[in-house]
């Protein structure tokens, strides 16, 4: 059961999306995720083209709006495994509000963000995660806005699962992404990758030199320690933390919802009301 579609992706040669695609397909295959009950929801951007290069169910919607669509798909059919996937501009910029409120909803979804710290498809503008001072095609004198720290934000909001991985470490990717998919609730994985065409600062080497796994560095790292996780998420510059930074086992949207907790599958429900009985309330 291959998750790959035989096709030539429309990405630049050397793009971080290539290894991400291979890593993701093999992770899903190894996990044995049932294809008929798997769906990917994406926004718009180079990252968001991912499902076109896989052999899966998908909903490729609007820029920034993958999370509301993913939420509703999961709400009406909880039997589906849902991944929402897009780039940093899509998920943290255009879709920033949905990111915040998606965490609050804590529906069971895995959110994969291709974070290359730049806009690719629109040719090199700064993204919410572009560092201060970096010169881009629309911030010619350098970015003056503070960068968003997506992991610190997610931890502050008490997201169910907060992780980071790197396209250059296949084994690490498999470990973090499969844990995120298995984890119940809103699981965020920020995936570091280079944009070979538009980001000359955050290169493959840049990430390779700085990324370290929190568990490898400290075997006693406790991902349920929220304060420690927050502190770790603030690290950048010389050393960038990756791995499972934060995790909790709080109940999901479905487990709390008065209707959904009964196990109903709304996509299979049909009208069953007796209209004349209902009308009696209006006499």
């Amino acid at each position, binding site marked *: 059961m291959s998750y790959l579609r035989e096709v030539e992706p429309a990405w630049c040669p050397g793009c971080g999306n290539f290894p991400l695609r291979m890593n993701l397909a093999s992770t899903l295959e190894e996990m044995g995720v049932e294809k008929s009950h798997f769906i990917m929801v994406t926004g718009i951007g180079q990252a968001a083209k991912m499902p076109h290069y896989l052999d899966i169910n998908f909903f490729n919607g609007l820029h920034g709006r993958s999370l509301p669509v993913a939420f509703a798909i999961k709400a009406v059919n909880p039997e589906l495994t849902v991944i929402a996937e897009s780039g940093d501009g899509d998920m943290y910029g255009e879709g920033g509000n949905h990111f915040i409120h998606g965490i609050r909803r804590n529906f069971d979804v895995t959110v994969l963000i291709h974070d290359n710290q730049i806009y690719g498809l629109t040719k090199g503008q700064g993204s919410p995660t572009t560092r201060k001072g970096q010169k881009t095609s629309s911030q010619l004198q350098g970015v003056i806005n503070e960068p968003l720290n997506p992991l610190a934000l997610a931890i502050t909001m008490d997201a169910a699962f907060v992780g980071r991985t790197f396209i250059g470490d296949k084994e690490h990717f498999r470990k973090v992404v499969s844990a995120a998919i298995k984890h119940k609730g809103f699981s965020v994985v920020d995936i570091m990758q280079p944009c070979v065409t538009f980001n000359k600062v955050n290169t493959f080497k840049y990430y390779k030199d700085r990324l370290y796994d929190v568990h490898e560095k400290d075997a006693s790292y406790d991902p349920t320690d929220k304060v420690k996780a927050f502190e770790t998420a603030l690290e950048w510059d010389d050393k960038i933390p990756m791995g499972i930074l934060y995790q909790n086992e709080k109940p999901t949207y479905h487990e709390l919802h008065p*209707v959904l907790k009964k196990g109903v599958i709304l996509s299979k429900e049909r009208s069953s009301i007796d209209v004349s009985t209902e009308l009696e309330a209006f006499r």
Partner: protein
Amino acid sequence: MRDFVIALSGEAGQGLNTIGDMLALSLFRNGYCIFTDKSYHSRIRGGEYVYRIRISDSPLYSMRQEFDLIVSLSKSTTISQLQYFHDGTKLIYDSDSDHVSSKDFDFEVKAMGFPFKSIAKEAGEPRAQNVVALGGILGLFNVKREIPSKLIEETFSGKEEIIKANLEALKRGYDLSLPIEIPRLDVQEHNYYLMNGTEGTGLGAIAAGCKFLAAYPMTPGTGVMTFLASNSEKHGIVVEQAEDEIAAVNMVIGGAFAGARSLVTTSGGGFALMQEGVSLAAMTETPLVMVDAQRPAPATGLPTRTAQEDLLFVVNAGHGEFPKYVVSPRTPKETFELTEKAFYIADKYQIPSIILLTESLVDSSATIEAPIHKEEFLQRFITEGNEEYRRYEITENGISPRAIPGGKATVRVDSDEHDEAGYITEDLEIRSKMVDKRMKKMEGLLGELSAPAKFNLDAPLVLVGWGDSWGAIDEFAMSRKDVGYVHYSEVFPIDPSIKEELEGKKLCSIEGNFTGQFATLLRSVTGLQIDHVGRYDGRPISANWIERSLKKEGMI
């Protein structure tokens, strides 16, 4: 046809809504026909609140602006309502509160003060002054006292002391025997229902099998959301309050895509935020059912008033070209029926279906016959598919078989232009075929439409209208021999064949807007010349407003 209009006025927070509802329901249950409306300010306490009830012996679907009796609990609202007094209007006020005196009027007013507050205090509940007024009015109409007594018992269920005092206040109100003459109205056992547009739309959605609703609260569209929320557990419906309207529309598209009938509700400003979603539904060919309850705009406008200003905006909603279906019900009965149909059309053609309401329609309760539920509207047109399944297969009628994820078919849906399988494409031959395929659905859609309502088309003047102005237009036309009408509740698309029937007639549209949006739309389809008289002050169209306006324009 005989009628009588009562206005209850006071400040928001004085319990007027509760008392107004009790008054309307008691009169209705006693056999009268009722039409209500509410005029209020966009605030929670204070400000003006007017609850009007039109009482008649056969159903009416519009308000008469000039009332026959006003029961006012505050001086300021008495004064603000003076413009709606006619020569015979009677005023009843609470003589225990700050009240009007003859120097407040520059014309003669038949006013009577009653010590509502003292009477309520004597009954044991000082706050029940409005129940005393309720009893006074119901006594006037010989309404059996057990009817409002039952409502009081239900309202204050479990609070025995309060019930006792309110029942006493009600009795003392009846005992006032108000010295007011009312017309003789035939009261009889009837088989009607009392329902407003919010309830009709909500019940229609439930009957259609709607299982998912997402919305961001916005007056006056919020009612449908809260109606479904209050029915959520009973009927197994998920109601999600979204972080914004963009999220709401995308959620509803996701819910519909995954197989549940889904609904998004809003008002004009929220609908504006949903534009890209309308276009997404069109491109992905996902059924999308939306409610836009109109209020005066632009921007925030008048949140609690009524208008018919969103028609052309809604008809043209979303960037790009694609088919859509827009309904604008005339009555609460039609809100039910057209909501069911909107779900059916959205599923059958995989297009956006928009239900265009108004503040006056959602807030007004009317006496209606049982809405007609149609089993055929429950058809979902969902296919199981197989391994060869292509979501956007080119077909003769433009409708591709629709599968949902979780079955045998792999379902690929894309907001980019796509090939038949659903994969992104830049092949411009495929692009043209896909546009043709989507637009082809318009042909089938035209065959789904019911004819507009028509009356006396041979009259020297034929009025043109749409939506909930029907009650006023119908009442006005019925009252004379020289006026007919053609009136639409399915407003897009429009069947151009109406041209043959209307050619050569003097046409004038009556609409709740400045520019005559429906006249523009009908003209664009038929080429007919249509004059226009519009109301854009936030108030609903009434029969006597139409008469005054047409006289002013020299049309009658």
